[in-house]
């Protein structure tokens, strides 16, 4: 048994790695740095750079020895917009032109911090281009590494160091790029992110200014208070109804219930909540409309939660029970003269336990995220409420943490389901 558990745990590792990779691709590669969204459009380059440095967004995505810096955005004078051209003093169009003896002026956005290694790359052509002063027309690259050192409390700022100077003729520059050296080749966002996941460090919420772990801890209680009753009540009600259907299969009760289930499935989730809240809380006044103060506040959300899932679940359990009833042992049981109820409860229900357990286990992660909309509508301060607010304020760390923890819980629930299945049903092979 323990070997089986261990094996299932090992099998889950690739999935966990995959989840980490997918969240990384989604939020870091596609989404990019959230600094501009969080700090606003008018934030200066320096605070953007500080925000990114604190959260590891200043590193290369996967690997690399050099990384871009906010101090000087890489520029290509073929495509640069007029604002950028003006900052460089590059005129209306064409490449940036330096006369003989003139030095390149770098419009740095802020002082380069001391103690870092940098690389300046200039691509261009012309008779005065350093090291390639042969007057060739093709684009030539010039690279220079340098250290920033503190000197009388001042760092380089708009100074031409390392100096790029046209010598022996005019120079036309197409591209300029300033890069910062990373600590090592694998010092990347991916490594940073994976390391934090391993340490279970989920970062800091940018809108609430609190550690995400603390927010998750605070939200899990209210979420569970909402979803555990939903799960239990729903399991009880839908199994009972499914058994009723199976017991009276083909009769009007069965047909009617199935029809009602399909109809229930087709009512939009939102409509359930909107109309439920309006009718039962506002018009009839049976329940409080909003808030999370006593158990009375949970009655209506739980009721709506049960109602929304009922159609799908009753149909699912009914199918399982009826599939079981086609099997030979049921025929035998009937043949030896057992009553319908006895066959159903003593034989069929026991054998159908496997799919029921799997279904419940796979619903377990839902306990954690709660029901996004129910929490939002009824003001229950759980994880769903937290996620909705985080999405509205582009709080990447929170959304990512909720997604990640949800996926981990799902994987664990899967393993638990398999173990429970093996425990309940000795026919399941443990190898």
């Amino acid at each position, binding site marked *: 048994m323990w070997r089986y558990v261990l094996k299932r745990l090992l099998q889950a590792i*690739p*999935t966990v790695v*995959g*989840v980490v*990779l*997918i969240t990384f691709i*989604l*939020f870091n590669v*596609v*989404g990019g740095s959230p600094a501009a969204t969080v700090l606003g459009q008018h934030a200066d380059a320096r605070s953007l750079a500080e925000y990114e440095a604190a959260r590891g967004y200043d590193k290369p995505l996967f690997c690399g020895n050099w990384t871009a810096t906010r101090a000087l955005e890489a520029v290509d004078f073929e495509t640069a917009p007029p604002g950028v051209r003006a900052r460089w003093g590059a005129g209306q169009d064409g490449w940036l032109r330096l006369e003989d003896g003139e030095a390149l002026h770098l419009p740095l956005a802020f002082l380069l911090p001391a103690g870092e290694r940098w690389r300046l790359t200039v691509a261009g052509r012309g008779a005065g281009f350093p090291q390639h002063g042969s007057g060739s027309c093709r684009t030539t690259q010039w690279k220079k590494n340098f250290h920033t050192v503190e000197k009388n409390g001042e760092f380089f700022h708009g100074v031409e160091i390392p100096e790029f100077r046209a010598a022996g003729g005019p120079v036309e520059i197409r591209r300029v790029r300033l890069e910062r050296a990373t600590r090592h080749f694998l010092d990347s966002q991916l490594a940073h992110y994976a390391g934090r996941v391993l340490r279970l460090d989920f970062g800091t919420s940018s809108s609430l200014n609190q550690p995400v772990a603390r927010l998750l801890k605070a939200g899990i209680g209210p979420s569970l208070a909402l979803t555990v009753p939903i799960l239990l009540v729903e399991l009880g009600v839908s199994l009972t109804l499914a058994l009723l259907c199976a017991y009276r*299969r*083909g009769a009007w009760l069965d047909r009617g219930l199935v029809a009602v289930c*399909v*109809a229930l*499935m*087709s*009512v*939009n*989730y*939102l*409509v359930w909540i*909107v*109309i439920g809240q*309006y009718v039962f809380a*506002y018009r009839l006044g049976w329940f409080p409309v909003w808030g999370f103060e006593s158990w009375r506040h949970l009655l209506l959300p739980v009721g709506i939660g049960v109602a929304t899932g009922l159609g799908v679940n009753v*149909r699912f359990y*009914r*199918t399982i029970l*009826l*599939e079981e009833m*086609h099997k030979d042992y049921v025929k035998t049981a009937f043949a030896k003269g057992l009553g319908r109820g006895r066959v159903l409860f003593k034989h069929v229900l026991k054998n159908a336990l496997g799919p029921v357990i799997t279904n419940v286990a796979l619903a377990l*992660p*839902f306990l954690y*995220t709660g029901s*996004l*909309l129910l929490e939002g509508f009824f003001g229950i301060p759980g994880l769903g409420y937290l*996620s*909705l607010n985080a*999405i*509205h304020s*582009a709080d990447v760390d929170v*959304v*990512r943490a*909720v*997604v990640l923890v*949800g*996926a981990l819980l*799902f*994987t664990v629930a*899967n393993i638990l389901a398999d173990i429970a299945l093996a425990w309940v049903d000795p026919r399941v092979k443990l190898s």
Partner: protein
Amino acid sequence: MSGAAVIRGAAAEGGVSFGREAWRQVWASWLARACLVVLGVFCLAALAGETAHAWYAWQDVTPPWQMQDLSARYLPPGAEHWLGTDGLGRDVFLRLVQGARIAFQVGVVSSLIAIPIGVLLGCLGGYFGGKVDDVVVWLSTTFASIPGLLFVLAIAMVVGKGLLGVFLAIGLTTWVGICRLIRAEVLQQKERGYVRAARALGFSHGRILFRHILPNVIHVALVSFTLRFPAAIGTEVFLSFLGIGAQGEPSWGVMISSARLRLWQGMWWELAAVTAAIFAVVLAFNLLGDALRDALDPRLRTVQD
């Protein structure tokens, strides 16, 4: 022998084709016919909405469903406005038709993203097995383990507000189910005689997979299309309701969002109209999906007796 096996046998002997027989079986039920009529009306509404949308965009005038008329606010359903007007005096019926247009777009485009991914990966994994299959299974397990609604929200958030985010979010999260079904089906088909015969004839893998096996498993994609369409509509309504879906257009989610506030002022007709529209379309898709599944794939049959 169950229904489809007989039909497949008949098809092999040059009888009625499998597809036509399945269609006949679906058409024979009055419920399925009613569903097809409802879906026909839905498609026509979407098409009409699309035409009107394109026409007003081309003419560069404000379309009537955006026209605010503050003197005609909160009008109940009547002769002039069939389904009444909303809080800004806009005609609810016209907005409903535009909502149908967006729902239709979301269902079709998200399927165009999800079904090719699912079918391709499922075919490759099932047919080649080994390392390829390991990668396919790993990918689908990983995607399946991320909580659905949150995944959708995260993708929509990263892509940005608007319908593009909705398309991508739904498309990129729902291919897993199709992939699994197709993979299981291909695994079974590849042991069949016709595949061995094709292999013995020396056909290339690509030809066997896409010319011979794919036509025999594609019905899975058809059934899953009818079953995922209502789910896609539901997700779009959810995203638009939260304000990260359709922008500045009357999608059904946007309409529920505004009707919700008006409901408390006693204006019930907008919410009722949207609810009824979604209910009819989703119910029709659900029932038709069940009927198609019964006709095309008896192994997945919902137990009726």
